[in-house]
């Protein structure tokens, strides 16, 4: 399995475990997860998000065969073009994670669109976690809503050459993003960790509406237990070939892994 939604480092509002490279790898071994895309959890609340990218690059230096680094960049913060260059050329990062609500910008702001276009030119995937944690348990210090799905639809439409992964979200089928023949470019995939796979079965609906090539496995570990995402694939009513695409094939293609 390839997990497109994993993290290293500390989060400002809750203690995380298994959040070092070695700790995460041990957890991955226990859950039979072969590779994981990781970014800095600390960058979510660092003012200068790039400090977290430097930490991640150092942390995974000896584990690049299994840990795939993504950068967290804030296009509303000084120097992001320099930081993008460093993340791509020096750190070998294969993509970005954007936190528009935590970093206080809109995905359709000109600076963010510049960042997305530049990432696309560099062949970097742009991932958008809809949330870092459930809003009901937010700290008294901050109120960070989930990323608005219409705003996401705006950026995928504005940057058709970019490749997006939408993570840690649900309710896509209630928005334009999860509808069949929605008029949007097919340049985004949806990660499964918060999708229902029984009862409402949003996972099944998204497979039906967007197609089997646009759903990817992710857990949100170490914020999350990885087991719910694994269990979703166990109970999913789909062929083994489709499940294999979700487990690894689609992510390997998007990330250009060999």
């Amino acid at each position, binding site marked *: 399995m390839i997990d497109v939604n994993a993290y290293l480092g500390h989060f400002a509002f*809750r*203690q*995380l*475990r*298994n959040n070092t490279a070695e700790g995460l790898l041990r957890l991955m071994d*226990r*859950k*039979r997860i072969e590779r994981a895309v990781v970014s800095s959890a600390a960058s979510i609340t660092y003012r200068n998000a790039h400090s977290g990218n430097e930490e991640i690059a150092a942390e995974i230096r000896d584990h690049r065969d299994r840990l795939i680094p993504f950068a967290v960049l804030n296009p509303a913060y000084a120097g992001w073009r320099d930081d993008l260059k460093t993340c791509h050329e020096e750190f070998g990062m294969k993509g970005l994670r954007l936190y528009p609500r935590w970093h206080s910008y809109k995905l359709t702001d000109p600076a963010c669109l510049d960042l997305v276009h530049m990432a696309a030119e560099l062949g970097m995937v742009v991932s958008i976690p809809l949330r870092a*944690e*459930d809003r*009901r*348990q*937010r*700290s*008294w210090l901050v*109120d960070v809503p989930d990323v608005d799905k219409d705003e996401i639809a705006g950026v995928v439409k504005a940057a058709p050459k970019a490749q997006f992964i939408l993570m840690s979200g649900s309710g896509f089928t209630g928005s334009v993003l999860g509808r069949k023949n929605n008029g949007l470019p097919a340049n985004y995939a949806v990660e499964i*960790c*918060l999708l*229902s*796979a*029984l*009862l409402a079965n949003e996972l099944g609906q998204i497979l039906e509406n967007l197609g089997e090539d646009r759903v990817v496995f992710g857990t*949100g*570990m*170490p*914020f*999350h*237990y*990885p*087991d*719910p*995402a*694994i*269990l*979703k694939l*166990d*109970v999913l*009513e789909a062929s083994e070939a489709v499940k294999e695409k979700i487990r690894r094939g689609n992510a390997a293609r998007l990330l250009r892994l060999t």
Partner: protein
Amino acid sequence: MKMPRRAFLGSLGAGAALMLRASSAQDTPGSGKVIDAHDHLSNRRQKGWEEADRRMIDAADKLGIDQICCSILPPERPTTLEGFRQCNEWMADATRRFPGRVLGYCFVNPGYTKEAIEEIRRYVEGRGFIGIKLYNDYRITEPVLRPIIELAIELRVPVLSHAGHTSWLPEPQPRISDGGHLAEAGQAYPEATLICAHIAGGGDWEWTVKALRSAPNVYLDTSGSVIDEGTVEMAVRVLGADRLLFACDMSLTASVGRIRGADISEADRRKILGGNMQRILNRRRV
């Protein structure tokens, strides 16, 4: 694709060398049985309720859940007398449709004191319901709850209370109870069995676990959609596995995955999955 329940659970892979094998179920009461202590069936005013209830049973089959303790809630707030009476009648019918599989909680608005008492007696004493379910009509510490809790003590059934704690006032639920209220009620009524609902769907779960520490007769159900790593481990560490009850509250893969992934002993996992709830069920007077 339906798999035999035990076979399915036995096939879950490395992290899931779990707990539910019948052959290991010798040490605690009901330890081989998986009981979902907090769930719901559909309000029958909804179109397609029958199919929705069937899907719930099918999902329980897939996940290896043997019994589901359910209530049916009306949508109106505050809960009306007609609303809870109708839902309890539907719930009684559901226990007949799925005998032994679905167990019923009697849902009431404690504000209708006399009628709520009659309703609880009718369904717990007369129809085999296993407990009382409360939503957010009143906080569990309010005086109007006293006759309800005292009746639960008399009948030896649990009171399952909707609960949540946030750092901000949830405007739609001004009278929601939290772990602190449950602990206060538990200390006031040490003979009562109270259940604090959905650790993973009630806001700041670390707060809730800490708030419940000093109320040994308050159980905590493990249901909810939030899949934060470490939730179950902290609850076991602070409260002890004997006070945790496996539950889903409609979040099925999240809730099963949470228990499956928790870094706890297999003995503790068995207690949480069914042993503890079975012990509560065994106490009933009727």
